[in-house]
């Protein structure tokens, strides 16, 4: 009961980055428990995936060949059966949209506690201490739990495992009960297309909920015009229908890496930051000096956007 089982994530034929990050997190944890790190890869071209996942630190890779794409029923059943077979102490699952679609079911079915979206985790072999945020990243907390558990890890918090490992690669014969699969995935659709590709822009003037009203959006557009820049936004602006979906930066929008990213009235929630942290220079205009965006900003103005934005526009007119 000291091993760690980590489940990997893939979509449409590609392993997702978090699959390599979870190796790092899992290895750290397994070193603390003194156990082995088992990886599992479920559905799709598992043999090809397993080869890619055989990086330093992995002891065993279990392939489950049922299914093509993610189906939460298949993942839940396969993970549960792997748990029964391997009896690991901890099950690590990516805190991805798909991870959140089966990790709670695995935990509940196995009667294990779950902690989600952790940014740090350690154990003395008995007590697991998980670090996670609350209140949109304003505070961090530590949370203890005893014994075996399911833990979902936030992406981009651990470095990707590198090198080549010498894991044993074994096919795991999961017994999938087809009658118990109550959902069917019929396909995928790319949204967020259209005329503008914000990921091509050199300068993004990005607006968040601090703008308060749709009627205020023009001050952002005027600034973008004056700077010859492109307007992008955080999610609530798109949810409200104030800008089209193709302007949204973040986890469920676009990943952008402009020379300069000006975040105006954006708090810097993790799902937003996922889409813009690779920008060369980040400038934040926000009344809240403690907003999480300040952690990744290079320059900041702790002031009211309704004063700063018009002043900046004027500079360039």
């Amino acid at each position, binding site marked *: 009961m000291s091993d760690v089982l980590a489940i990997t994530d893939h979509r449409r034929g590609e392993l997702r980055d978090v699959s390599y990050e979870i190796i790092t997190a899992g290895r750290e944890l397994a070193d603390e428990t003194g156990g082995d790190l088992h990886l599992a890869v479920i559905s799709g071209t598992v043999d090809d995936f397993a080869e890619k996942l055989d990086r330093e630190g992995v002891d065993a890779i279990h392939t489950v060949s049922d299914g093509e794409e993610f189906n939460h029923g298949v993942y839940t059943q396969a993970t549960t059966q792997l748990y029964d077979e391997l009896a690991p102490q901890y099950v690590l699952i990516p805190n991805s949209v798909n991870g959140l679609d089966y*990790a709670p079911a695995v935990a509940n079915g196995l009667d294990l506690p779950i902690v989600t979206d952790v940014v740090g985790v350690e154990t003395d072999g008995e007590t697991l201490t998980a670090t996670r945020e609350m209140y949109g990243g*304003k505070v961090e907390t530590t949370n203890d739990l005893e014994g075996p558990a399911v833990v979902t890890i936030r992406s981009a918090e651990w470095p990707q495992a590198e090198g080549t490992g010498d894991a044993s690669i074994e096919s795991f014969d999961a017994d999938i009960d087809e009658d118990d699969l109550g*959902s069917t995935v019929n396909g995928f659709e790319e949204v967020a297309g259209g005329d503008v590709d914000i990921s091509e822009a050199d300068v993004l003037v990005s607006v968040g909920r601090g703008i308060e009203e749709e009627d205020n959006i023009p001050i952002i557009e005027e600034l973008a015009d004056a700077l010859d820049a492109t307007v992008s936004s955080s999610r609530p602006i798109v949810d409200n229908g104030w800008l089209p979906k193709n302007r949204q930066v973040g986890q469920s929008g676009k990943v952008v890496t402009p020379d300069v990213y000006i975040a105006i009235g954006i708090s810097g929630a993790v799902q937003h930051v996922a889409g813009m942290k690779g920008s060369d220079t980040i400038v934040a205009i926000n009344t809240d000096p403690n907003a999480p965006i300040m952690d990744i900003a290079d320059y900041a103005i702790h002031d009211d956007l309704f004063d700063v934005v018009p002043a900046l526009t004027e500079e360039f007119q």
Partner: protein
Amino acid sequence: MKILVTVKEVATVEDEFEIEGTAIADQYLGEDLNEWDDYAIEEAVQLQENGVADEVVTVTIGPEDCEQTIRQALAKGADRAIRVWDDALEGVDLLDVGAKRSILQEVIAAEDPDLVLTGVQSGDDSWGATGVSLAEELDYEWAAVVNHLEHDLDDGIAAVRRELEGGVEELTDVELPAVLSIQTGINEPRYASLRGIRQAQRKPLDVQTLGDLGVDESAVEGAVTLTDMYEPESESDVTVWEGSADETASELGELLRDKGVAP
């Protein structure tokens, strides 16, 4: 068809705040209806307006103080509300996923809805896991992070879109009964009308204790113990420009010129 919506009054935090022990000091906290739940309520009310649902019931775990927030859902069109509270919940600083699940499962079992809508997560503790746990426990189907739901719900199937990362949506059929966790942007939540607000005062709001539900008090302890809360250490070396808006704007202007990206 009956729809149950789980709703929560979440704590909001002021820009400047202090931490006392493992909680943010009361005077810095405000309250709001959880953003995601607002969309879940709207979806349920629209299903009712479209003649798909006959009844929309909300359930919340929270003290009397939260009734005003909960009545917002009634004012927007939900038919009745259930609020679970108990002395045993007083002073519990963290309800983990298992604890929430063990309380809400009894309400759902008693109400026996065809569809349960939750928010993707709550804005304060953000576990993002209660809906799927409930589904597994109650033998409902489920889908997490739903940003579109076809309203015909024919043949006991909910056709949904799940919002994946990177602007990709997954088109999925989910058998009913099901729990769907609803993502922001799925609809445009309405504002309650004055008439709605008046009517909400007369709609039933039923208060239940753990005993009423047959939930053992020990369940609220959960398996997870909050041991510390602190402001994250900032790793940033941010340069803060001070001064009037004109001054800070001209600093930023200068930076843009230096970078060669200003016209």
